[in-house]
């Protein structure tokens, strides 16, 4: 029986990877392309000066410049260093991993074409990102700007997440450029894929070995389910391009908990916590952790109450 369960766990984990792999690959290739061909310095001069404009650019940045959460922290740091307002950079950092076509499409597919879930996810993340960006950009603006030149997370020239313009002007043979791009896509896939595999395996174990009585208790109590799945999202560190599939596999949990899992996972997880404390002052780092968690907890429950 135990052997059968382990085999079932393996098959579930593989099925999650199979389902998420196309989207992860697409995201990796897009990310690698953006990484190489988008000039962030030129972008900084085009950002509106007013707070609403800054926020809007931050929120919608992911639509034209999608990137995974592990890439968004050093990118935001770099954007800050290049003069992009904190409100824009922080909002972009938090929103881009979710408010982008690839993640929204994967959420749509994972939930069998449930548009409510897609819109709810985008809304919860957008509100949480905007509020956090506003708090960081307003209350702690001086801290952030004073600290923005601290060389804590420097883009590694060999690392895929180095988001500079240097590669644009680097030139080179077109075939070599294509090879570099594809290789970068593969490396991005590998980097993100490890979190997908860990998440898929944990999720599969959770599904196969969790006692039925406990699951019923979890499913019967919406508030508890939301909090537990949020904790799980923080611990699992699943990539935002794949977490919709993992969330969809928690079929016994209420939609509010699935939504909270998807929303908070892209904003706060174990690897991000470390990066926040490395890249930003402590006050900002705590704001980046606490505000999104509180927002997601409240908004997920509220939205699911309103739209069902």
């Amino acid at each position, binding site marked *: 029986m135990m052997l059968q369960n*382990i*085999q*079932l766990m*393996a*098959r*579930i*984990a*593989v*099925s*999650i*990877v*199979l*389902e998420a*792999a*196309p989207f992860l*690959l*697409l995201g*990796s*290739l897009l990310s690698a392309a953006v990484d190489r061909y988008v000039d962030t310095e030129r972008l900084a001069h085009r950002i509106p000066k007013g707070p609403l404009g800054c926020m809007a650019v931050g929120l919608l940045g992911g639509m034209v410049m999608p990137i995974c959460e592990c890439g968004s922290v050093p990118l935001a740091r770099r954007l800050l260093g290049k003069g992009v307002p904190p409100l824009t950079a922080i909002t972009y950092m938090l929103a881009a991993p979710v408010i982008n076509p690839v993640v929204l499409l994967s959420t749509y*597919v*994972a939930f*069998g*074409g449930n548009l409510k879930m897609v819109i709810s996810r985008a809304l919860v993340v957008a509100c949480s990102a905007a509020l956090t960006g506003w708090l960081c950009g307003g209350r702690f603006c001086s801290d952030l700007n004073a600290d923005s030149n601290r060389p804590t997370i420097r883009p*590694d020239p*060999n*690392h*895929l997440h180095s988001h500079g313009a240097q590669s644009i002007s680097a030139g080179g043979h077109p075939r*070599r450029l294509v*090879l*570099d791009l*594809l*290789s*970068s*896509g*593969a*490396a991005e*896939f*590998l*980097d993100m*894929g*490890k979190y997908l*595999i*860990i998440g*898929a*395996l944990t*999720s*599969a174990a959770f*599904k*196969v070995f969790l006692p*039925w009585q406990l*699951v019923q208790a979890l499913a019967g109590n919406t508030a508890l389910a939301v909090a537990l799945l949020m904790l799980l999202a923080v611990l699992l560190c699943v990539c935002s391009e794949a977490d919709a*599939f*993992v969330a*969809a*596999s928690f*079929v*016994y949990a209420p939609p509010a908990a699935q939504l909270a899992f998807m929303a908070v996972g892209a904003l706060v997880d174990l690897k991000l916590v470390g990066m926040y404390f490395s890249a930003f002052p402590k006050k900002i780092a705590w704001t980046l952790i606490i505000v999104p968690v509180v927002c997601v907890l409240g908004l997920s429950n509220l939205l699911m109450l309103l739209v069902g």
Partner: protein
Amino acid sequence: MMKRLLLTLDGAFVLGLGIYMLFLSQAEAYTAFMNPKFRPLTAAAAVGLCIVGAAFLIRSDGRTDRLRTLCFAVLGMLILHAGTGTLQSSSALTLKPPETRGEPEPLVIRDGQNYLKVNPARLFFLLQTGNALPVDQGVITRGIVRRTAELDRLDRFALLRGNMVCCLADAIAMGITVATDGLPAAQDGDWVTVFGRVRLLPEPHPVTDLGGSGEVPFSMVYDKALLVAGTVERIERPRFPYVFELPPSGKSPPRLTGGDDDY
């Protein structure tokens, strides 16, 4: 030396995953993991993975990560260990997707009466989406019997079928309560074919103490109708234990598995 080895392994894992996905996307075994609807998506991603994997082998970025190499090695082991589940036929790995077979005959005629072929999950969606069957329409359906103390008292059992909406991870056992009214009781876990008619209930009658069915740990039973059985016949497990119904398919049911396997 170690760095080169890790990078080569990384590239090989991506390439290997692409080859595996390409093969699986064309094999019958795909239905043990995924809804066949996603075959083209998996195949396209597989080709992409082969290309980027090969590119990485030729020209890697030079940065290694032991954790990612380990994770992909674990994935390789999972793939080797996963098998094809209940789809144990020798043809499970043949390159012949079952859903390419012809459109099945929708009805079964027995003792001069027509029975509509409908699997328990599709029956669930038909009823759930308000597309209730005509009162006098006979139904033939197959699934796993789940018995509980509460249902036993009422001379009923739940008939369930694992429904893979997207992939195995989100599969749910779906079905309906069957009223046997004095017929010989089927055993818990038996595969049966039921000939019967749907009867709507005046009040919902939820089944609360039901576990899963087979490999699917969670279940949903339509609680506003019964399937009143005329005949319950014990059968061998069908070739395709899972079905692949999506909620809208209550209106336009897909024939993914085809032939006699499609109910």
